[in-house]
């Protein structure tokens, strides 16, 4: 099972969860997978847009009891 770094951004509003993901991606090596937890529906739509533009991989985007979980793999 691949190690997943959780970014718990629950309670933070757009663009907070995205900013936390960007900070995490800058700090970790290529191949790292992140899972952003967000209670903000806007971030669940916006993070995949950033991921596509920035050249990373959207692994999963799901909602679990009002918490959005966006999984992203750093590709470059």
């Amino acid at each position, binding site marked *: 099972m691949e190690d997943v770094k959780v970014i718990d951004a629950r309670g*933070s509003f757009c*663009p907070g969860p995205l*900013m936390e993901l*960007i*900070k995490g991606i*800058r700090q970790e090596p290529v191949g790292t997978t992140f899972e952003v937890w967000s209670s903000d529906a806007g971030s669940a739509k916006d993070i995949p847009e950033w991921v596509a*533009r920035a050249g990373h991989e959207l692994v999963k985007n799901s909602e679990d009891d009002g918490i959005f979980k966006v999984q992203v793999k750093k590709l470059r």
Partner: protein
Amino acid sequence: MAEDMMNLMLISGEYSRLHAAAMLSAVASSYGKTVNIFVSMEALPTFHKDPQIAEASLIKGPVAKKIEETGGQGFIELFQQAKDFGEVTIYACGLVMDVYHWTLADLNPIFDDVMGVAGFLTKAEGQPTFTF
């Protein structure tokens, strides 16, 4: 090349405009875009180091107040993040600096230099430029 550069002119002291510009800057710089920001007119005093001057210059509508209530990041923090993410240069307008007799030491340290409108136009020429 144009697609790798973005220029912003901050003119207004409205919190919502400054916040929107800061969000755009942070995301654009994270993509690798070079961002030049020229801060002029009513926008510049909102970056003053003295919180009383900065606060008195800010115009806050209902959304701005809600962002503050919910503990969201402020626009200066977002501009700082934009600088941390990539190549973002922030210029203070020479006119406003002159009329208030300010130096860069009077402003938040996110500023890189003082620039006149001719200098900014030279930088921005032929590149996408947005005004807030």
